[in-house]
């Protein structure tokens, strides 16, 4: 019994020891709870919110691009897509069959949807088909009661109602590139987001894009959205108004037709580009939807280069359209007067080289006006030889050659105005006298873009300012342009203008007389140009081949620059038709039609914009 009592006492001791141990353990647990729930509570509250709150971006609506009258040329179109939430449907396969009976659905689509629905959580909507037409939408809507889990989702996508007509101006939108992703705008990571890839869509990307909205949603561990907590709507991008007149643009494109080339029409007072056509073009809508690789390859490999904006990226020898520059350089230097004549026997000899005039039997004695009118090469060989290439280059640069115009478009090129220093630096060779003669007729190293040619015509027509072209006239840019002064004597300008008037309006020997504008008060002044693509050999000269006998890529480029109307110049135009043959025969009629249309449309435009005239400029 005594032993039992001892045994019991021992038990009590050990039990109390055990209890003590448990008190220590409980203290540990309570301490741990205190640490987690009081000391670190804020940290964990933040982590819990991180867990449950997801930030979703709301894409902004892209700014609209309109022509000068507000006509939409890049707009947003409502799109409809069919999505399927598999948890709300009994059998995905049956529902798909039902859908296929109502709208077009390929075997491939069905297989893809079946794969996606099995791969993803069943509450994630899977896109069955995009780009539903309105009639397809209504067919689905009517049958929705029999289509559980089927939803029509609305979206917005870029749409170019004019298709390829202004494609080179607007450019297009496409999927975000790797390089753009570096810019770390989280919007760009949204699936299906589009950014401007070309033209004004690219230049004004930041303004057009707008700002993302946000939506805070509570999600569970599987990513299912439970509810919306907060929402800030997206800010639509700024709208952009262009200087383009879609009526004129369409007219110019139709006039140019199937030819590869470009037409630029400018308001020579304020630089507004009214029409800018580059042909052939492409459909910008195709880029938005995603181009097949075959279609892309076809565009790339097309010898007529539809992806290139020829009006600003095409570089051509200006040919005879350059002769005004040579004439003005000579007049400014005082080397020639209008009275001085040069005898043209059809060729010109420098050292042991012979340079031909386009007219084999020559023009006889010609003065400056006559030389411009008939485009006599020998006259300009002789003048250029006296002036020298560097003085010609100086004058060319004053009229916009050799530098980009900084028009708000992508891919513009600068052309080339050769000088002695240029040749020394780039080719490492001394300038040869014969090369100056080539430059005199706009050949040789001389290169220009149609935009530069239009600028030259605009400056000749304007006479006072170094007009610069512009294509955007929205709130983004001030509407009153500032131009540097042209700084050329009026008497000098009067001479070349007289020559250009004669080219078109002199029935005797005017190279473009047949392309004159006969409407009273709308007459134009211009200059033809025919740019050789390849060197003309003696054999060619002997053969005297017809145009049809020459392969297309070897034919001459046809050029024409002009301004109108004669007495109160307002519009400048440049037409370049690749491998079109002669400037007078092919390019001049296009310029005539377009300039006449530009003037006819003046009454449409003027109510809006008489303010565009510059002070001191007679209209």
């Amino acid at each position: 019994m005594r032993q039992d009592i001892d045994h019991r006492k021992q038990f009590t001791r050990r039990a109390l020891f055990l209890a003590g141990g448990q008190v220590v353990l409980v203290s540990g647990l309570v301490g741990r709870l205190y640490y987690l729930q009081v000391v670190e509570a804020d940290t964990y509250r933040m982590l819990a919110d991180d867990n449950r709150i997801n930030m979703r971006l709301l894409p902004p609506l892209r700014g609209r691009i309109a022509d000068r009258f507000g006509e939409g040329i890049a707009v947003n179109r409502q799109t409809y897509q069919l999505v399927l939430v598999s948890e709300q449907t009994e059998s995905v396969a049956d529902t798909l069959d039902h859908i296929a009976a109502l709208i077009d659905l390929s075997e491939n689509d069905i297989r893809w949807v079946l794969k996606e629905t099995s791969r993803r959580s069943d509450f994630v909507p899977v896109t069955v088909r995009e780009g539903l037409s309105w009639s397809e939408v209504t067919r689905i809507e009517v049958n929705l009661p029999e289509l559980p889990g089927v939803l029509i989702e609305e979206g917005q996508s870029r749409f170019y109602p004019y298709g390829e007509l202004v494609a080179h101006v607007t450019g297009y939108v496409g999927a975000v590139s790797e390089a753009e992703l570096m810019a770390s705008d989280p919007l760009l990571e949204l699936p299906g987001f589009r950014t401007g890839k070309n033209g004004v869509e690219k230049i004004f990307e930041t303004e057009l894009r707008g700002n993302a909205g946000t939506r805070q949603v509570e999600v569970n561990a599987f990513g299912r959205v439970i509810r919306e907590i907060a929402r800030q709507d997206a800010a639509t991008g700024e709208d952009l108004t262009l200087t383009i007149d879609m009526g004129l643009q369409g007219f110019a494109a139709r006039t140019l037709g199937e030819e590869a080339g470009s037409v630029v029409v400018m308001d020579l007072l304020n630089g507004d580009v009214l029409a800018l056509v580059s042909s052939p073009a492409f459909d910008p809508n195709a880029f938005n939807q995603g181009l097949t690789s075959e279609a892309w390859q076809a565009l790339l490999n097309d010898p007529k280069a539809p992806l290139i904006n020829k009006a600003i990226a095409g570089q051509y020898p200006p040919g005879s359209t350059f002769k005004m520059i040579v004439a003005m350089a000579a007049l400014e230097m005082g080397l020639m007067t209008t009275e001085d004549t040069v005898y043209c026997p059809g060729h010109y000899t420098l050292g042991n080289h012979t340079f031909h005039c386009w007219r084999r039997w020559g023009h006889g004695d010609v003065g400056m006006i006559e030389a411009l009118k008939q485009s006599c090469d020998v006259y300009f060989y002789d003048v250029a030889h006296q002036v020298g290439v560097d003085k010609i280059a100086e004058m060319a640069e004053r009229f916009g050659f050799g530098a980009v115009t900084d028009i708000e478009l992508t891919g513009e090129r600068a052309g080339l105005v050769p000088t002695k220093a240029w040749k020394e630096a780039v080719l490492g060779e001394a300038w040869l006298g014969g090369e100056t003669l080539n430059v005199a007729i706009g050949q040789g190293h001389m290169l220009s873009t149609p935009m530069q040619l239009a600028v030259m015509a605009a400056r000749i027509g304007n006479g006072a300012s170094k007009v610069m072209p512009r294509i955007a006239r929205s709130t983004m840019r001030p509407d009153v342009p500032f131009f540097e002064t042209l700084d050329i004597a009026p008497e000098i300008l009067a001479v070349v203008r007289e020559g250009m008037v004669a080219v078109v309006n002199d029935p005797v020997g005017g190279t473009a007389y047949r392309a004159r504008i006969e409407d009273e008060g709308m007459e134009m002044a211009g200059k033809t140009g025919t740019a050789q693509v390849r060197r003309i050999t003696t054999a060619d000269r002997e053969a005297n081949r017809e145009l049809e006998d020459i392969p297309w890529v070897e034919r001459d480029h046809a050029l024409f620059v002009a301004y109108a109307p004669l007495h109160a110049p307002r519009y400048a135009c440049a037409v370049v038709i690749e491998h079109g043959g002669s400037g007078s025969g092919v390019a001049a009629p296009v310029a005539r039609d377009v300039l006449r249309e530009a003037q006819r449309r003046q009454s449409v435009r003027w109510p809006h914009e008489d303010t565009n005239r510059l002070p001191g400029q007679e209209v």
Partner: protein
Amino acid sequence: MVAWGGRFGPDGLSLTEKLGAMSWGLLALLLLTAGMGFAMLYSAAGGELRPWALAQMIRFALGLALLLSIALIDISRIHRFAYVIYVLALVLLIAVEVKGSIGMGAQRWIEISLPGFHFQLQPSEIMKIALVLAMARYFHGLNAEQTRKWTSLIVPCLLIGVPTALVMRQPDLGTAVMIVAGGVTLMFLAGVALRWFVGGALVTLGSLPVAWSLLHEYQKQRVLTFWDPASDPLGAGYHITQSKIALGSGGLFGKGFLEGTQSHLSFLPEKQTDFIFTMLAEELGMVGALLLITLYLLIIAYGFGVALRSSSQFGRLLALGVVATFSLYVFINIAMVTGLIPVVGVPLPLISYGGTVMITLMVGFGLLANVNVHRDMPIARGSG
């Protein structure tokens, strides 16, 4: 010695006397604690009685009936059948083992289908109580001097070792740890010489590398990710990390009943079973967690009281054995969900959803109540 007749045995206590001595305080504490559990299961189901809360209530009611019946049984009869119960539990444990090795894969339970009631019986849970019974009976048969002899270690070590080995094979690390810890606590309470515990601790430390090599890959993974849960935030460390976030974000007063974001948005795994404490602490805060811990402590204290007042070694060991097992559940589970020890899969007693654990615990508390009712009853030392 004991006749089979007489409904409540020859112990001289009438039914009225037994009911009068019944541990009503214990029952009240159990009801309060389980009530908190029902509320949490109701919340876990998003404010629904189904699928968990209602089933748990039925089990608790069943357990309560079982508790009362067991409390009324003559304690000497329980003493007599202690080994039989242990052997039955062992047989069940072997049955699961055999069934598992026959090709059903690792299984810890036996499906039991009664009319209108279906549950999975986990023999390892039963073993926790059966071991307490067997150990209590064994040490009851020894006096203090015999207890101190090294020979008296052989049987307890076997009683502990055999089921531990079987449970480890299942493999169920948490239960194995609990069986060993419960058994060793009983040996300590019974009066085994302290030097054996010191020696045992040294041997355990020395054999840790061997034990490590015997662990299954996933068990090793759990232990490893415990040390650095961030190393595998979406894998094995996910549970610990999310549990800590839920606890911590609950703060002092919690997010409110039914308002736990971690649990209701499914970031918290196993919220109705092993991680229910986390959910409670997220919704009710540290205040709620402390309330539950207080209830647990009161139950434990009650058990200590019963044990210390019992006149027989069997009663004392049985009572504290049940209490020790119960507190092991509490400590291991809370330490586990607060990230103090690796995740071993031990439920929170009376709160976690689960049939066998609830029944096992109620049987255990029945035994505790039994000791209370029969605290002055002497029990013969022999096997009868």
